[in-house]
């Protein structure tokens, strides 16, 4: 739940990038960190293993200006994608306001995308949150692989697998090169802000 401080006139919003391992969640944050360096007051925090896999989370806070006299800070988190880290994944979701689900378009990742989304639903339930009532943005990442020999799933298939019930806004993306990373983020911020608007006044 967003933290609204009526004394300091600050609002802190938590958006979590969720999805299967090696899907590009950290890469999204790294691109945002590079692109918006002047709006980001601190270094990006990454808790990772020796082989560069996310162990706990990445954390990137940045300011997006004022709304109704309140300074808005967006705090972006990623979760560790590897299956074995579900306990820590669940911890990062505490107090979440918005979700970006980063799915991997590679054909061989199809089941992992679906399993991860199902687990997100279950993990949110532990905090009495309903995925269907949350601001969610879908990102189908690694779309640039269509120029290689690696078999990928069409967006139609991705939509059918992951988004037929949720009906969330979806973006094809290439996080490594920054393609659609910022539109995904902007959509998530605007949806999340709209969802907490009522709490501001």
């Amino acid at each position: 739940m967003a933290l609204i401080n009526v004394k300091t006139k600050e609002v802190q919003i938590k958006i979590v990038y969720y999805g299967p391992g090696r899907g590009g969640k950290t890469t999204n944050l790294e691109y945002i960190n590079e692109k918006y360096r002047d709006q980001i007051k601190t270094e990006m925090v990454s808790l990772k293993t020796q082989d560069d896999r996310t162990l706990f989370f990445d954390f990137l806070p940045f300011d997006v200006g004022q709304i109704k006299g309140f300074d808005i800070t967006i705090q972006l988190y990623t979760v560790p994608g590897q299956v074995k880290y579900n306990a820590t994944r669940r911890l990062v979701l505490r107090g979440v306001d918005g979700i970006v689900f980063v799915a991997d378009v590679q054909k061989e990742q199809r089941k992992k995308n679906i399993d991860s989304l199902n687990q997100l639903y279950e993990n949110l339930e532990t905090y009495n949150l309903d995925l269907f009532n949350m601001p969610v943005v879908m990102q189908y990442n690694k779309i640039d692989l269509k120029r290689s020999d690696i078999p990928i799933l069409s967006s139609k298939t991705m939509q059918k697998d992951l988004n037929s019930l949720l009906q969330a806004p979806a973006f094809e993306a290439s996080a490594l090169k920054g393609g659609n990373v910022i539109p995904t983020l902007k959509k998530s911020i605007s949806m999340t802000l709209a969802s907490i608007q009522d709490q501001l006044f």
Partner: protein
Amino acid sequence: MFNENQLNAIDTVINDNLIEAGLDNVIFMDMAGNAIAKHDNGKNRLDSIALAALAAGNFAAVDAMAKLVGESEFSLLFHKGEKLSIHFSKVDDETLLISMFNKEISLGLVRLKVAETIKQINTILASD
């Protein structure tokens, strides 16, 4: 959400009990990693936003470990450094108090002052 009177009262309690006692930094924060009140003695610069996020993760991980071994919680969470140490304390189910202090101050004094502060913050939170 805390009202302005509560936030003012919490600021006063932290300042009077902890900063006046010589602690370097104190952060009152929620379990999601958001800093609600930040206080320092003006002598050092701290990235309190990142620290709050990491502290929430740390506390949550230790709490989950306690549950795994059959404890309801580990009551003392404390990291000792050469010059600076960090003490974590749960205020209620939703909030934490993080206190940073230098080697001039004993852990015993910090624990005493923190316990008193938490009691007072809980009274403030109950007086909605």
